[in-house]
């Protein structure tokens, strides 16, 4: 409890000034190391910061996960001050008065929060399931990538340890007993809801992007481009044309170098 209060206090104190000039963004190595769910989160935060027009220095570290105050990536360093993961980072930016969703009214704002929660629970859990629980993907992609920066036998032990953590998380929210088909259905249902909300708009809430756009982009772009052993998933995403267009739009506007990193 004390630490929770401490964290909130810390958040407030750290957020009194405008965007500092020395912000560093920490994440694992994109090409060889990072796993699917972690990369989605990193991409979402980077997109959000780019949408907000906030500058940061991208730092790739093999031990980004262990450095992070929450144990998860990505995290930001602003002077002596650290913030990790999507929601706290968005909250921090908002507290500085740099919010990109300030133009929304109350109803829209709570609607946005609901969608963000849905993406967090459905897409993030689905990504965790696919990369850590699905045996083929775990053995062919997740384990070698997650273990790549460690010497043997840590290259086996650490992925296994992380897998245990993911299992207990998915167990707590009732995802562990799902089959792969169930998970793909969950994704489809979530994408359907998002697709309906987006309809023919440029972004989810009109002409300006919000944090929801950043988050959806982070997950979808990653799911579309990732090379998984079977292409069922990519195929089903392609059916939601307007979401794919949204991704292309955001990529074109905020990233030109995304492939290069």
């Amino acid at each position, binding site marked *: 409890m004390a630490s929770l209060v401490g964290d909130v206090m810390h958040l407030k104190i750290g957020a009194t000034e405008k965007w500092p000039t020395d912000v560093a963004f920490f994440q694992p190595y994109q090409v060889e190391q990072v796993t699917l769910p972690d990369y989605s989160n990193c991409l979402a935060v980077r997109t959000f910061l780019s949408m907000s027009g906030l500058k940061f220095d991208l730092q790739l570290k093999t031990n980004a996960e*262990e450095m992070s105050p929450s144990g998860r990536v990505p995290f930001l360093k602003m002077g002596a001050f650290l913030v990790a993961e999507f929601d706290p980072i968005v909250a921090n930016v908002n507290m500085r008065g740099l919010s990109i969703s300030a133009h929304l009214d109350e109803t829209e704002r709570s609607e946005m929060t609901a969608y963000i929660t849905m993406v967090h629970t459905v897409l993030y859990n689905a990504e965790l399931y696919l990369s850590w629980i699905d045996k083929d993907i775990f053995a062919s992609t997740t384990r070698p990538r997650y273990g790549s920066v460690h010497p043997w036998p840590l290259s086996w032990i650490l992925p296994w340890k992380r897998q245990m953590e993911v299992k207990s998380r998915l167990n707590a929210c009732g995802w562990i007993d799902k089959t792969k088909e169930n998970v793909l259905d969950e994704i489809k249902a979530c994408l359907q809801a998002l697709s309906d909300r987006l309809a023919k708009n440029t972004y989810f809430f009109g002409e300006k992007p919000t944090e929801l756009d950043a988050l959806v982009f982070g997950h979808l772009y990653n799911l579309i481009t990732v090379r998984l052993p079977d292409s069922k998933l990519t195929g089903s995403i392609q059916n939601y044309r307007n979401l794919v267009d949204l991704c292309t739009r955001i990529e074109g506007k905020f990233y030109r170098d995304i492939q290069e990193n």
Partner: protein
Amino acid sequence: MGAVHAKAPETTMESHRTQFEGPSNDTDPNFNFDIRTVPVKVDRVVIDGVGKTKNDILEKTLKPVLSATNFKEMVEKSTQAKIVLEKLELFKKVDILIDTSKGKNASTNGYEVQYHVEERKYPILNVKMELGAHSANESDVVVRMKSPNLFGRGELCTLDYSRVFKDDGGYGFQFSKPINGDPDIRIGANVYKGYAEFPWSSFKEISRGTALHLMFPTILGSHCLKWEGVWREMRALNRNTSFAVREQSGHTLKSSIQHVLMRDRRDDKILPTKGYLVKLTQEYAGLGGNVEFVKNDVELQYNLPLVFDSIIQLSLAGGILTKIDQNKDIKINDRYFLGGPLTLRGFTVNGVGPHSDGNALGADAYWLSGLHLYTPLPFRPGKGGFGEMFRSHFFVTAGNLGNVNLMETAKENFKNLTETFRLSYGLGVVLRLGGIARLEINYVIPVRSQNGDNVDRGFQYGIGISFL
């Protein structure tokens, strides 16, 4: 002369010495003889009370007793064998009884040496509270089960489990075995998990490891050769941890081979009154794993007894850590730290050297020297008893901690390490705690320090097993 019979009752090792090294004081005060000339033939060596202990190890240990030719030699050899049995920890208790041999086959000067032994039936179990073992303000409970002579050849097996109040503690399993019944040559293996906090650098570490070792003596001293493989998981202690420390968090796997040569000629480890110590340690890390370095350490101590039971003690220690791969920095958990109430007095624990936001970063090299004058307490309260646990001391300590810069020459590096040294002096009281640790309460005046050092002037106290 031929009719002398000595009969030793169940006595301990010490009483044998006093009884037999001089002339025997039998009933007749004028009776005088030299035990070195009394001819002896040891007919039999009997050992009773043996259960699981194997015969081969006992035969090897007791055989020399049979070769004794005079009385003094017989007593010495039987005592020697007893010491070996005790060192091997084969029995809970060993008593010697020497008697003339009786019966038909008894020779003229025949004797019989009897060993009465008692084996341990159960493992030794103990539970203790350790204060400040892992972090300053916490105590943890350690449960230890020890079973000496597990399989009958002096195998020693211990199992530890410790629990810190709020965090998971650690466990350890050790096994060691004398080779060829020689108590000084042992091989061993252990497996452990430990948790430790390093408040001066604001990080915590979980280590899981396994090690194999071989101990053997040579004319130089006792050697220990060890291979260790340890997986260390380092994390920042809290949100205020300096980024320079946080940056180094993560998993490391160290596989190293270490050699320690120790020549200890002191009469006590905690408060020696005479003798010297030489300890040399070399460690090479990089046999697999992702930690690579070479570490060389030296520790020297010389004790010079003076009048009125006072002792001058001169100590010197130093170490140097060398990178193997120039692009790979050596992480904080392998570096040297300096300072504290039992080492470089007048500074906080590991408070000397480079810091970042108040967190000590450690360095590649250090040296430390100390000059102590130990005297009994003033007016000698409790002389010969309780008072012997205490000593007052006056001391001067000096040392330095720094990084070795490869762009500079060895001479310049040496100059850097000697020019910026720290110096302190003071006086205080030392208390011996058991046979392994000591407590000091000192008044210290730091004379020389550098920017960034955490100076601790005035009263300082400390408890520890390593000191200088």
